[in-house]
């Protein structure tokens, strides 16, 4: 078991998704039970499904000085960075600590692959057209390269890409760097955008719901894919700031695209998060579940929830609002967990009518007004890659 870690301050945070730009838009949509999902209007080849699309990206190119990085993913990153004055907070942290003492940790599953897909649709003599030939558009690190240029950080910088746990694992990466004294702050960025690869890829795996996803519903039919950008600034101190209390990471060691039947990896990630946070399940007020609405994920996660938490724990999946934002899901749902703490409410599980019997005690379907002091967020990815984050209210 890992040792307890000193909590870190979350001195700024924001998210942009199909629910809108910034924290206020998310609170309003969550409280108002207004989903961001809509019928798929993204793919030219028809695919009957719901998507969580961010409006306006097509008409929002990057500022000209960063035009070489212009892709849907980096546009969403830039749009999200400006929300809630996060960009100002990040720049102030860089000025305060020094650029070399601030890490920039990106998480994404598909980066700017939408630009690579576009290049293949417009091959000229078997080569990429000049406008789409720049390597910065086709690397898994495209998000990190763009943000490092835009922000000017000089600390460690990488892109974690562990599928749907990517932007949860950057919290763990940041905590280690700060605890070891390598940096004083970390800017965390999780961004994933709609693209043919994920829409038709999950469709090929028969995991896409034809209608809006219904997490943990007995009649659920699969995921709805969304896009999002989330940003978090982590520092050692911050008066009145919510806290990162702990995290746990594990591997299922079972299958590339199917969860372990008994949720072994999920249980290990939860146990490590408890140990690092120095808490037990009874102290957890709210769990933001991975809750993708696939038959298997929700069946396994429901059993883990029922086994490891008392019936009084409140839990939900918010993917009925945002869709599954894949590599951005970790940080988006971290932000939703922080909003639950800040605003004192548990978002329910949108679109779900009859919950999986296994977890019907814990699963909140309707929103609930209640104080949330400790919240967890689960993220599980392909390759059996699991991460649980634990957050707490201001000390």
């Amino acid at each position, binding site marked *: 078991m890992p040792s307890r870690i000193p909590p870190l301050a979350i001195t700024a945070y924001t998210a942009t998704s199909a629910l809108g730009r910034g924290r206020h838009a998310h609170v309003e949509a969550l409280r108002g039970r207004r989903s961001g999902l809509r019928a798929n209007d993204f*793919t030219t*080849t028809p695919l009957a499904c719901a998507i969580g699309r961010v409006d306006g990206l097509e008409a929002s190119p990057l500022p000209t000085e960063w035009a070489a990085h212009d892709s849907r993913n980096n546009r969403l990153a830039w749009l999200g960075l400006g929300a809630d004055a996060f960009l100002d907070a990040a720049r102030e942290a860089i000025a305060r600590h*020094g*650029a*070399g003492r601030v890490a920039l940790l990106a998480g994404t599953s598909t980066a700017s*692959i939408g630009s*690579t*897909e576009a290049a*293949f*649709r417009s*091959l000229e003599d*078997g*080569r*990429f057209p000049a406008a789409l*030939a720049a*390597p910065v558009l086709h*690397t*898994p*690190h495209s998000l*990190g390269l763009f943000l*490092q*240029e835009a922000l*000017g*950080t*000089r*600390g*460690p*910088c*990488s*892109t*974690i*890409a*562990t*599928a749907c746990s990517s932007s949860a*694992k950057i919290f763990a*990466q940041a905590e*280690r760097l700060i*605890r*070891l*004294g*390598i940096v004083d702050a970390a800017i965390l960025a999780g961004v994933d955008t709609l693209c*043919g*690869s994920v*829409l*038709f890829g999950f*469709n*090929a*795996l028969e995991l896409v719901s034809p209608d809006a996803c219904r997490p943990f519903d007995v009649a659920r039919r699969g995921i709805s894919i969304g896009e999002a950008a989330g940003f978090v600034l982590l520092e050692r101190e911050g008066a009145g700031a919510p806290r990162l209390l702990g995290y746990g*990471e594990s*591997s299922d*060691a079972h*299958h*590339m*695209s199917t969860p372990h039947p008994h949720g*072994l*990896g999920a249980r290990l990630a939860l146990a490590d998060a408890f140990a690092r946070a120095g808490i037990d399940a009874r102290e957890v007020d709210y769990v933001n579940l991975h809750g993708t609405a696939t038959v298997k994920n929700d069946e396994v996660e429901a059993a883990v929830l029922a086994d490891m938490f008392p019936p009084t724990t409140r839990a939900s999946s918010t993917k009925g609002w945002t869709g599954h934002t894949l590599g951005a899901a970790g940080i988006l749902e971290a932000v939703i967990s922080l909003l639950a703490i800040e605003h004192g409410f548990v978002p329910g599980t949108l679109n779900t009518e009859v919950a999986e019997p296994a977890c019907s005690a814990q699963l909140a379907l309707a929103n609930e007004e209640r104080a949330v002091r400790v919240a967890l967020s689960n993220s599980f990815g*392909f*390759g*059996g*890659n699991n991460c649980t984050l634990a957050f707490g209210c201001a000390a």
Partner: protein
Amino acid sequence: MNGMLTVHVDGIGWRSPGLADWAAARALLRDGGSPALLGASGASPAVLPPNEGRRAPETVRLACDVAGQACTMAAREPAHLPCVFASMHGDLAITEHMCMTLAANPLELSPTKFHNSVLNAAAGYWTVATQCHAASNALSASGASFAAGLFEAAVEAHANEAPILFTAYDVGACGALAGAMRAEASIGVAFVLNPERSAHTVAALRLRHDGDGDDAPALRGSWFDAALLPLFGALAHGHCARLRLPAGAGSALAIEVLA
């Protein structure tokens, strides 16, 4: 708070076209030779069951091959080792295939190709094959992928006070995407890194991220251009060495090799 991290190298894995393991690479490097990187890696790792070995893409076979070598040399059971996998490109052949299919008939996309396309495919296959439930990581940092992965592995080793497996790999490809990325070389390397010296330790690496530097080496080309010869040359000769690898804009990873 000087940010210096020392890790001990308990195991080394290597595979490049024509050099099947670290012993072969070490012999070549000691003779002053330069490894040839063009061509197929030829990896067929023992750790993957035959069926998985056939299904797995070349990037995964290469990564699992060198990871297995490093664990064997370090006499470490992979099931208990956390792991960090770093790759500049991921699997270009799969990305190429998927994008061609998406351009022609997206409804015919292969489900296996899709789940093999994630950057953590190597970490996924490795943890399944070795029954490893520890944390597994997959990251990319352009031409700094080796430096970023090595540093992340050293950070994890110290933060968790436990040995860790670090693997860096890339595979040459052909096609429009590989052409745009100028990706031709195949190379996989791996270390078992230990925060403590052990009976298996063959060298130590003292690492420091230097973000002060206007004199930082430029981030261009591939990680093996910058990383490979100075670092592995020193390890092959058992020499001490100091080197600086590009680690992103305006920053370097300073490495001291202690024989």
